[in-house]
């Protein structure tokens, strides 16, 4: 049963992403727990895939570290079970891992979803699965009451928007600009245009790709986003700590501080928003 709707119920949602198992299993547990202390409302847990075509160098490298550290789908599910957090959890991964999980009896992709529900995940983001190919996964998600988040890109318009609207649940991931993931020093105007196109949708809109600071978070939420998704800026902290040989505790506390900055930025942005006509 997905707990995602609650996360958007009062105020903007801050949704951090980390690659699970980066740089190792134990540290990664601490990092996710630190994000919750820093104010995460939902956490996107990246299950590493060897060909992450939608990711920029920061997350690509994180994925390599996690795979070298022995992360697998089975370990990932153990990880989720072991986590001591209360916020909803979304699995971010590529379709082949979902498709291949479990037995060879053609029960795909149901086996993965069943296991995900069992360990307490709330939904999925699958960047290489457009609405056209998502039927079987959508069906399995419906069966187990999990959410399937879709990405809307700056190039997504017209009929494609409608196709996605039919399938999306939980929240819609608004891709802030064209390209791959990665922290940027500016926030694209493509975001405002995308948000405007989705104005009528009654599913929460979370903006991601390139958000790095509390100020970005503030501006994006003030501009109408219901949530912000931050990956590379957090993964950078993990990478730096790993390179410098810092303890997991030190890195966790930096993550917590960064999370707080982002989450507070989002709240400030929310306070500046004109009241939405349809919201009370």
């Amino acid at each position, binding site marked *: 049963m997905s707990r995602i709707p609650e996360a958007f119920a009062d105020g903007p949602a801050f949704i951090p992403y980390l690659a699970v198992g980066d740089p190792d299993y134990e540290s990664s547990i601490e990092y996710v727990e630190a994000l919750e202390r820093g104010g995460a409302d939902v956490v996107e847990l990246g299950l590493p*895939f*060897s*060909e*992450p*075509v*939608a*990711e*920029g160098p920061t997350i*690509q490298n994180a994925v*390599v570290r996690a*795979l070298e550290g022995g992360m*697998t*789908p*089975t370990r990932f599910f153990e990880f989720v079970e072991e986590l001591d957090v209360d916020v909803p959890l979304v699995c971010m991964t*590529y*379709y*082949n*891992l979902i*498709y*291949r*999980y479990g037995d060879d009896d053609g029960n795909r992709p149901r086996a993965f979803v069943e296991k995900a529900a069992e360990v307490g995940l709330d939904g999925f983001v699958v*960047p*290489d*699965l*457009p609405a*056209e*190919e998502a039927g079987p996964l959508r069906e399995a998600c419906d069966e187990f009451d999990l959410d399937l988040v*879709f*990405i*809307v*890109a*700056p*190039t*997504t*318009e017209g009929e*494609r928007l409608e196709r*996605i609207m039919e399938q999306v649940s939980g929240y819609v991931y608004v*891709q802030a600009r*064209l*390209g*791959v993931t990665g922290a940027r020093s500016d926030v694209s105007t493509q975001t405002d245009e995308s948000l405007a196109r989705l104005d009528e949708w009654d599913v929460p809109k979370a903006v991601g790709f390139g958000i790095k600071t509390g100020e970005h978070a503030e501006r994006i939420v003030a501009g109408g986003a219901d949530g912000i998704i931050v990956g590379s800026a957090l993964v950078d902290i993990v990478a730096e700590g790993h390179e410098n040989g810092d303890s997991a505790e030190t890195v966790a506390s930096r993550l917590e501080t960064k999370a707080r900055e982002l989450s507070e930025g989002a709240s400030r942005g929310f306070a500046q928003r004109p009241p939405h006509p349809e919201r009370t």
Partner: protein
Amino acid sequence: MSTSDGKFGRYGGQYVPEALMPAIEELEDAYERYVLNNEDGFMDEFRQRLRDFGGRPTPTQYAERLSERYGRDVYMKREDLVHGGAHKLNNALGQVLLAKYMGKDRIIAETGAGQHGTATAMACAHLDFDCEVYMGERDINRQRPNVFRMKINGAEVNPVTVGRGTLKEAISETMRDWATNVEDTHYVIGSVVGPHPFPAMVRDFQSVISEEAREQMRERAGTLPDSVLACAGGGSNTMGAFAEFVDDDGVDLYAVEAGGSSLSVDEEKGVAPNSASLSTGGEGVLHGARTKLLQDRDGQIMESHSVSSGLDYAGVGPELAYLVDEERVTPVNVDDDGALEAFHRLSRMEGVIPALETAHAFAYLEDEHGNLGETVLVNVSGRGDKDLESVIEETEKRGIENAPDMSMFSGGLR
């Protein structure tokens, strides 16, 4: 077989990031209009340019010494004589011309052996496009002559360092560039792989091979071949050589894959010491399509291996996967040593220096000619000039028996 829904049985499809979907829909539309319906005379211009710039038609040549050796008629479709030295130009020219009809102004491509990169760079110079090519670092080292040729034709070559630095990583990197610059850029994919419409479109551009070969066999031999052999990396020369024969029930089709050093898999390291995804792979989703892949139990894609960088890829075209399941195409494989021996044999006996990729098809002919019927057609997908450095090094290292003494060249070409 054509495809309107982008599927070949259970294979194919469009598994790409959302940002690319509008571009793929635009390409689908352009494919239908220009390639399938010859709108604005696109196909006429393509054929004309293939003749004048590309040097088509290529001959189907009777291989006298090989025919004697194997006691049957062996014919060679000489794609090595296409401009640039490989079948790759058929597709590159088709796609770059299509990009022009679509009003795009930038071309990107990936390359393994460098033949596709070279063909794309040549087509871009010919049709006045900017061109950037992604190539794995390991492949850059294996295929230096092609790197020079790309640069000389005005292309930028971007080294890809992640992973093992081969074709798989180069494709992923080109997809990232495309997702960033999708509005003005066309991605000229190098084989019958990727999301629909690429596998169908690349097959159509390459099917000129079997269209000519079928005619030429009728004229030269008075009969269709009993079997057709072509090496399969992604599978573009394979599909090109097979396409017009698929409905000829009497013609057996053999896709020859790289068996590398072994067909078994190092599960621990996640490495397949081969590139035989049709023979040994499992069903999965990679680079935009559902197809047969070298992957571990969890679905992580494996590093592949072949002495020839053009076959060194963990996936294969979805249509080939389908034709194998339908038992229309037989997947077979030969190892690195067999390919090197075949390289020297063909060079020595026929005066044709084949690409190491192509040599795989001739290695299978050596091993299995008894099962291939009276008349055999082998597709010479490309010439081996690009491979001379690798061949010298690998031949010495392995002690290939039928090779000339290479010691005088050691280190000398570099």
